[in-house]
């Protein structure tokens, strides 16, 4: 029972990281209608920046995270402006391939700068662990922090998109880009802001991910990126609460599956659940089905 609880909490923690990454995916998809395959690599860059800041510059964790967010935000805006904006009216697949190109670019740049040797990510927020059941159940401070961060980000984003002017502009652009433009919304700027937010979240996710799984390599971001993308689809791509639920469920399923069914098949179980969900809810858990007008 205690071990189940431990797995569950680990799952929620991992799921929180997925959820934060998935939020970036889902926001970009909702607004730019593109699958940003480079998103996972932004995570990796964020983690490297935080690592360098802590390891080489000796900065405190908070400053390092902020630095990572800053760099990733700038990077997100630059990538969007240089690689994706010129293809705004191009077919979806062309943009997808460009995103894959950006992903290769980031991975190989990281390879040249930081080499392929794995870096051991330092513990970021070690303020002891929370223990229960006579010490049998130990929850690290990173786990708690990850979960708290997820909740805070979730509330902040929901408020942002619901209440602020920019947030409303985002929703308008995602609903109907043409109409939003006619209403005087600067579509390009709105998309830039979305990429900025998504990339900043990716930086946070990168630090949290590497705190829990402390090996950092140029390919660190790709698998969590794909999983988070899966989580976004799982919850209904384009939906912010969907990304949250999708991420959490995916994390829990992955950890429980690995613990109780098969370590080797952990990923297969995650993907199998995704497929089953999509068969019954073809637009994800919270997604709206789109019907073509005849």
């Amino acid at each position: 029972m205690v071990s189940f609880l431990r797995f569950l909490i680990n799952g929620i923690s991992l799921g929180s990281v997925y959820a934060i990454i998935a939020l970036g995916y889902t926001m970009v998809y909702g607004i730019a209608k593109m699958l940003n395959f480079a998103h996972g690599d932004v995570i990796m860059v964020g983690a490297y920046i935080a690592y360098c800041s802590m390891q080489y510059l000796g900065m405190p964790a908070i400053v390092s995270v902020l630095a990572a967010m800053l760099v990733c935000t700038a990077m997100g805006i630059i990538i969007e402006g240089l690689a994706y904006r010129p293809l705004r009216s191009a077919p979806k697949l062309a943009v997808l391939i460009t995103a894959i190109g950006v992903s290769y670019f980031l991975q190989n740049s990281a390879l040249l700068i930081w080499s392929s040797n794995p870096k051991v990510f330092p513990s970021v927020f070690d303020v002891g662990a929370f223990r229960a059941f006579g010490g049998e159940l130990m929850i690290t401070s990173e786990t708690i922090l990850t979960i708290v961060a997820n909740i805070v980000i979730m509330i902040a984003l929901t408020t942002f998109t619901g209440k602020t002017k920019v947030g409303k502009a985002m929703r308008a652009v995602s609903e109907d880009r043409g109409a939003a433009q006619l209403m005087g919304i600067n579509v390009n700027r709105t998309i830039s802001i979305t990429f900025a937010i998504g990339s900043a979240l990716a930086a946070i996710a990168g630090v949290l991910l590497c705190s829990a799984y402390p090996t950092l390599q140029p390919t660190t971001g790709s698998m969590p990126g794909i999983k988070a993308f899966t989580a976004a689809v799982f919850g209904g791509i384009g939906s912010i609460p969907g990304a949250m639920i999708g991420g959490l469920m995916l994390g829990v399923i992955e950890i429980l599956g690995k613990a109780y069914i098969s370590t080797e098949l952990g990923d297969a179980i995650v993907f199998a659940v995704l497929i089953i969900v999509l068969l019954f809810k073809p637009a994800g858990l919270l997604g709206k089905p789109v019907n073509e007008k005849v």
Partner: protein
Amino acid sequence: MKIKKNTVQNVITYLIVIAAFVLCQWLISSGRMTRSLKGQMIPICVYVVMAISLNLVVGISGELSLGHAGFMSIGAFSGAIASAWLLGGFHMENEGIRLLLSMIVGGVFAGIAGVLIGVPVLRLRGDYLAIVTLAFGEIIRNVLNCLYFSLDGSRLHVSFNNPNIPGTILVNGPAGATGIVKIATFTAGFVLILFTLLVVLNLVNSRSGRAIMATRDNRIAAEAMGINVTKYKMMAFVTAAVLAGMAGALYGLNFSAVTASKFKFDTSILVLVFVVLGGIGNIRGSIIAATLLTVLPELLRAFSDYRMLVYAIVLILVMLATNNPSMRSLYARFLPKDKTPAPAKGGTET
């Protein structure tokens, strides 16, 4: 006349492939080809077949598949097992026939997987379909990592997650298929390309092919004309899976050992890149793109460490150059109207 124009185009495609093969054979026999490039010949054939078959799904049938490498891996594993079994169990010494049979086995198993995966996948649309093909690709890789095969005399043993089976191990879980006798040849690769071209080009220019394209162009109108959309999407998907399985078998039999991690999501993406760069729905473009991009890292050796970076930049620049509206209107000014590079059409329904 349209039919004649198509036929001419197809003949040109066949001629290009044959000419390239003859040229390469000459370069090899006269010793003008470097060793590393010679080693690339079979992989090039494999990737050309992969790209053509994926183009059948993405370009002709209009569904974005991100799991094509999964079928390739099934072909590689079943082909390797079949080859070892034919040699060990039936003493089939003739390598040519063994290669042919192994490729057929690879194609059949990949085709069966294609049917099993196609049934759920093709009920979905657009990006959801894409993500599910990705998921299936990953599932196949995970499952292959848990499979163990061994040959005991002429008996084949299979087990899941249990390496203790009698006889010589053929497939060793995460270590993959081992001890493969390398029987793949460049000529076999060339023949496979011709076969793939025959299947895909003839299918496209037939009743079934037109039905497949109709479901891509307008699903609702196709249904109203009495076309069973799922059946024809399935036909394209499974045909592509069979061809990918055959290519996979050839690929597997070109190495002494093959692991499932060679067929990761990245491989599927790589093949998709060939298809998109070559022009979606453009078979000849797929062949050229697959060849160039497989050779490109070799050619970029001068850049040594920077070559993958250069590769990424080339990829992005080519996409920007061919798909940016202002660049396209620039081409239109200099080139005759029908010669502008084909726009990459959205593979997903818009």
